[in-house]
């Protein structure tokens, strides 16, 4: 009994501390996080749609989902404002890489859509 209540308290404390820490992040970081969240949300909508309608043009489904996941991942990674970002590269280079990768991603998606 003591164990479960302590984990519950732990979970509650965890949640609260996370929330307060997150509220303290600067606004532009939160915008980028919103962008990533939106991309993943779009991917989820596509999956639900496929579950309802069936997956006939499978390549179109895949390209749609992967484009959303791809932009989410790329944005999350090139987030040079984030404190987790690796400090070895200058931000301009990171941004240029981000643009290049997005370009390649969308070209391949357009070829794959069919």
């Amino acid at each position, binding site marked *: 009994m003591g164990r479960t209540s302590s984990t519950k308290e732990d979970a509650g404390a965890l949640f609260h501390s996370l929330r307060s820490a997150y509220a303290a992040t600067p606004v532009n970081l939160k915008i980028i996080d919103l962008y990533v969240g939106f991309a993943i949300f779009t991917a989820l909508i596509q999956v639900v749609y496929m579950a309802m309608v069936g997956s006939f043009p499978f390549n179109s489904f895949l390209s749609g989902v992967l484009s959303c996941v791809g932009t989410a991942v790329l944005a999350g*990674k090139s987030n040079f404002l984030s404190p987790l970002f690796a400090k070895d*590269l200058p931000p301009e280079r990171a941004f240029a890489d981000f643009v290049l990768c997005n370009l390649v991603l969308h070209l*391949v998606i357009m070829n794959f859509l069919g």
Partner: protein
Amino acid sequence: MATMPASASDLLKSFKLKTKQQELLIRVSILCLVYILAFITRLFSVLRYESMIHEFDPYFNYRTTLYLTENGFYDFWNWFDYESWYPLGRIVGGTLYPGLMVTAVLIYRILRFLRFAVHIREVCVLTAPFFASNTTLVAYFFGKEIWDSGAGLVAAILIAVCPGYISRSVAGSYDNEGVAIFALLFTFYVFVKAVNTGSLAWSLASAFGYFYMVSAWGGYVFIINLIPLYVLVLLITGRYSMRLYVAYNCMYILGMLLAMQIRFVGFQHVQSGEHMAAMGVFFLMQVFYFLDWVKHMLSDTKLFQAFLRITVTSAVAVGGIALGLGMVSGYISPWTGRFYSLLDPTYAKDHIPIIASVSEHQPTAWSSFMFDFHILLFLFPAGLYFCFKRLSDATIFIVMYGLTSMYFAGVMVRLILVATPAVCLISAIAVSATVKNLTVLLRSKNKVVQTGSTKGSGGSKSSSKALLDQSQPFQKNGAIALLFGAFYLLSRYATHCTWVTSEAYSSPSIVLAARGAHGNRVIFDDYREAYFWLRQNTPQDAKVMSWWDYGYQITAMGNRTVIVDNNTWNNTHIATVGRAMSSYEDEAIEIIRSLDVDYVLVVFGGVTGYSSDDINKFLWMVRIGGGVFPVIKEPDYLVNGEYRVDKGAAPKMLNCLMYKLCYYRFGEMMTEYGKPPG
């Protein structure tokens, strides 16, 4: 008189370069020489015979390349070939790896643009040596990334002449592996570079490298399993970092998307069991990223530990359940026979005789290892030792690549090729580190002597070095002796490799040579003569039945429709041909008529003593035919379990179609190649 030496010494001084520039000059000149060496050591068969395509599979690649040059990419991509697999045809556009053909045609177009009037066949013959030279360059950069530039140079030299690689990349061996090994090493190099620098640009390059590999060879499955395994090992050993996250994610998503553009691969990246490791590691990486973020957010470590435990267990559980559901419901297909037989070598012998019958798929003997690797075989463990001494993200990768590829090389002879770059790199580390240590020993003593004489005072370092030298007075001599030994070993390696290339790996196997009675050289060009006979003396729509080995060559050189060829995608069709070859003549004629065949081609070596003819392969025809049609039973053709073809052979053997065709009027020493049935 006095001024001339002064001006000469001034001249020399102006040429004298700084040490760094000297080093650069030495490195560049070594690389240029190695580049040229890798190319010319593969040219033995072109010099001895002529510039032609070797073996069986390359003929199909050559035919498709011809089609591509004549008809353009769109027609090539959508090509339906009605000239092979007679009643069925083959969707060529969707069942081949286009990388090799596209590369050759690209080189051909560039050369034509520069107004060199080459024929596409020359380009095809020389594609593999050209890419072997490029591989040596990639090996240099890879060695530089893992260890230092000395190791890179040694790796380039070792891989330029290593027989394991030469065996599949001689001039004329126009096969997927010639280009694929370059793509493999390039992808690995760029990925390790991405992990080391954490830059998106390098990961993008590795995604493109992976795309090139997927377009070139079915062995790309090795990459898509080794890289996730490597990432997993890094995660487990606590080396997670943002650089790893960036490198793997970008490579996985973009690489997967690019790979799905190849029709032959299709949707396998999300549906096949062989590719699920990559997806699992992808999700695991997201979990790690999330954990990293949470850890950064929280200040309380105890809370974080609890959170860590919960998250990891739930993530692994969810992943396991998803995988289980996928496999049980059949959505995720299990490992296909070709790759499953790598994990369980006995599987193919019992279940898939076609895979078991290919001589390249047999397990490797020690003699093959020694033959193909020579001194690299004992330098490999030495290199592993050095790698473990200096563990970093890059050396962990090369250790894993080396160990996994050596395991697979032990299972199948053909995969020695995949192990060769890893073995060369690791051995190069051993050689470079050893030589470096020895030369440091040599130099340090000189330096101590110099500083002792010029400066006159000793810091603690030089005095301790002097003490060291005094304790082992023969250290310098030992170092010199060891260096000479290393030099001797490496020169023996080079000699061995050249001998192996010249004797064993340069035969085109479509033209045979032997020594006549007076020591003159006799050339047997029988294969090509037979195919040209077919081309010139049979009607345009004639259909030829032969064993599947010769299918590609008949379509490429004879230009006639065949029943089965080397693609071996339809086991039942091959079994039908096998049944026809092993039945009595009246049963066989029924089968042959039902397939609309006009000509039967058999290869018989009784006149010349050629040992790998159809009589030698006959038991495989029986086994494959018997695998589908139980009417054919292997023991019928054996005498006391022994395979005999003389007077004492089994009666079924003496009366079957193959025997009758081969030994027709053999008593009069006549052999016929193409001959109508019945």
